[in-house]
């Protein structure tokens, strides 16, 4: 396949059957629409391209910046598209909670503006939230911005009404599925696909999935927030159901471990929500049915999200020479030196504090190895000769005591911890320098 540019690779994603041994439904064929295979990484490539396309020429002429309220996938796609056309892109958000996505956007050259938290002391005369204020500046003429406005832009829906939806029908040999399940963010994909499917068969049942109220699943809305979305029409959905972050992660694990599908959390959520909903229907069926859910994007951007919620998935074997392996008695018995002794210390002085604090003020002649780095060195063995006396320095003498205990256990004969740390040193009036 030969293309002129990457936007031509958007769409025409495969529809892939999920193995019945995995989903356990007896009378329903379950298919995943693999939107994760879009070139910029997600379903949102379609909407981004559809919304941006008519704005590009004018924006390039005026030198405008493309701007969108997006926490992830739309921003990624728009950043790429803007870059291809020599335009700048800015993402405004109050919900960018996934560090990988943030870093990726910066890498793509996007600017990110993060909106402030709520005021601690309420100002009742402040009736406009920062988001609406931002919205107004963006849409005023001559602002220097073109705003794609995904939560209200009908072209977001059209991208799926003319793309995603008809592709599903085509791949099912001209039939609409009986059930369609999708997570709701801007509602663009679910609304657009639903329209296309119902043109073929008005009886298609559409299930929209949102996050539970206090939960967070990156990319989609909670049951309350969905009402703030301009494109959201309750009538589109036969049911709106909630999924939890835990369920989304369970679904994700099934997809990545058993279905060869590196899906992100909303793909996992859609799978879980689909199976949960269909299981109740399955038992009473007498003929075969078809269901489709959407896998929106890929798992790689969500590693820290997963690590935070399921640390056990990333469990690593314990490392040798770790201070966590010390017992209280060993730490209490760690050899110490008081300020007087430390003033006359004949050997090496190692300061475990942060480099900034060290550079600002330290004990004359000391060297700085920040504790994290020191811990890393010790996993490998003793980093200095046994004949070299070592004095360890930290803020209050606690961390240094742990490391002194560990070094003692590792066989170092003359290591000491500065009792009371550098704060005691300062309080005793001993000299601190900066170089």
């Amino acid at each position, binding site marked *: 396949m030969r293309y002129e540019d990457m936007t031509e690779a958007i769409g025409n994603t495969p529809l892939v059957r999920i193995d019945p041994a995995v989903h356990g439904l007896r009378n329903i064929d379950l298919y995943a629409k693999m939107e994760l295979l879009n070139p910029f990484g997600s379903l949102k490539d379609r909407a981004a391209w559809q919304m941006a396309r008519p704005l590009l020429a004018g924006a390039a002429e005026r030198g405008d910046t493309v701007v969108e309220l997006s926490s992830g996938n739309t921003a990624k796609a728009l950043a790429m598209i803007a870059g291809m056309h020599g335009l700048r892109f800015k993402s405004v958000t109050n919900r960018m909670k996934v560090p990988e996505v943030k870093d990726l956007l910066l890498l793509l050259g996007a600017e990110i503006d993060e909106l402030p938290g709520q005021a601690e002391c309420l100002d009742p005369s402040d009736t406009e939230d920062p988001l609406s204020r931002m919205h107004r500046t963006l849409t005023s003429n001559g602002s220097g911005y073109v705003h794609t406005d995904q939560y209200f832009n009908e072209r977001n829906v059209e991208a799926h009404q003319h793309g995603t939806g008809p592709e599903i029908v085509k791949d099912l040999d001209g039939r609409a599925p009986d059930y369609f399940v999708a997570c709701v963010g801007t509602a663009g994909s679910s609304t657009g696909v639903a329209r296309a499917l119902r043109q073929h068969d008005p009886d298609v049942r559409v299930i929209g999935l949102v996050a539970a109220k206090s939960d967070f699943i990156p990319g989609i809305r909670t049951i309350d927030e969905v009402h703030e979305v301009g494109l959201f029409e309750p009538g589109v959905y036969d049911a709106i159901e909630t999924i939890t972050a835990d369920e989304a992660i369970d679904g994700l694990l099934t997809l990545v471990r058993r279905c060869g599908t590196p899906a992100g959390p909303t793909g996992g959520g859609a799978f879980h929500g689909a199976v949960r909903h269909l299981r109740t229907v399955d038992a009473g069926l007498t003929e075969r049915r078809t269901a489709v859910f959407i896998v929106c994007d890929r798992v790689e951007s969500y590693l820290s999200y997963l690590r935070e919620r399921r640390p056990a998935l990333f469990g690593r074997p314990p490392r040798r020479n770790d201070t966590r392996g010390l017992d209280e008695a060993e730490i209490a018995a760690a050899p110490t030196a008081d300020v007087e002794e430390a003033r006359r210390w004949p050997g090496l002085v190692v300061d475990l504090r942060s480099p900034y604090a060290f550079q600002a*003020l330290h004990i004359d002649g000391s060297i700085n190895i920040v504790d994290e780095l020191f811990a890393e060195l010790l996993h490998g063995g003793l980093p200095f000769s046994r004949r070299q006396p070592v004095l360890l320095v930290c803020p209050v003498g606690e961390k240094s005591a742990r490391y002194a205990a560990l070094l003692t256990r590792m066989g170092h004969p003359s290591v000491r911890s500065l009792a009371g740390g550098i704060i005691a040193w300062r309080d005793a009036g001993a000299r601190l320098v900066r170089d």
Partner: protein
Amino acid sequence: MPDSLPLLLTPRMEPITQSVLTEGALLRQLTDGLGSPLNVVLPEALDDNVEGFRAVYRHHRLRGQIYFAHKANRSSALLRHLAATDAGVDVASLGELQHALGSGFGPGRIMATGPKNREFLWLAARSGITVNADSLDELSELAALVAAGRLPRVRVMVRLAEFASRGVRMVSRRSRFGVPSGQLSEALDRVEKHADQLELTGVAYHLDTIGLAEKAIALESCLVALDECRRRDRAAWSIDIGGGFGVDYLADGQQWERYTSELAQAMLGRRAPLTWNEHGYGLRNEAGTLRGTLGLYPASRPDSGPGYLGRLLSATAPEQRRPLGTLLLDSMCDLDIEPGRALLDQCGLVLARVLEVREGADLLVRLDLNARDVSLEEHGVLMDPVVIPRDGNAVPETTEVYLLGNLCLESDLITRRKVVLPVRPRPGDLLAFVNTAGYFMDFSATRALHQPIGRKVALFRQGGSWSWCLDEHYWPVHESREAA
């Protein structure tokens, strides 16, 4: 799917508040004698709150002072009780400073914040407290007063504002206060110019936000500022991170979630209104889409007060990528805080008498206090009052009411929210608005219409039972009086 269960917003009441509410006879006697509304403060509750913050300090091995932000309540009893602990006080006016000095705080435990007039600056300099300077000109004005009066050097901190973030740009609300952090070197020049009058002890910020990320940026910037002081051989050892630690007002977070969901449904016309004249608390219905933002204090905040401080100290500094608490310690830096609201958690309640219960389309309950006497609504805090029946035996009967105030103003509703009470109130009953010591008690009260401002009494435990005195008569010595 409208929810038909009653939409309660039950306040979180710790044992001290619960214990006071069981004293129905005493509370009725007090309101009979002193009138409605009546403000009740509970100085003892301060001890647990100070200890809660101290525990976070200990956990992070940090030193520094807890300055109570006096503005949250004018009570003498609370201030004098606090003077008996190891906490300090943050004063924001001449009157507050006089009050603090007269309540037993030595100058080493008082910090003046906010913009100051000459008289305030003079008394601050004369009494030797620390001045947290709000602007460059304030530093000069203070120095001039010190020089003119040949006063000893005054300890100063510089309040910084407008902190810059790299990579992701953090948009913060504009503030009227403080020196833009970009002008730090001018501020330090100014202090050095007046080195005989001013002694720099550190830098400060106070951000009016619940956003942890903004505060993490500010705190890390203050560490950088302190480093700059050290580069100039100004040994400054403190960072004051202001207040804003928040309070968890509700007993059950689920109630808050349900209430706010249902409010949105009501605004969209999908259920019966929950508010007077369909007030939306900031939400509005535009063609079936919910617009605006909920202008309410997040009343359910399990991670508030000391817990919030703990989270900030454990948060990773955006640039140096090490926990902020660790960085403070690495830099040998003392941490000062100025909690107002959070130190007054559970420290008082407002009592009001029910004057009339009027039947109609809605049940209207008219109270002998107005919305400024208990300014929950003004501050966007929604929580239910507790009914204290006039004769001690209440008949449980879930009742939806609107609470009206005693001013003849259409807008004088204690809250525009329809309140669900577990018992039906009757004239002569008392309503207790609990946990209102921080900002909701005397901050906004006025004598409009010649309505009285509530008297204030302090309740304290003596010999196993509750005693009381007028707020101005409270001194933290009743225990020893009993022992004598």
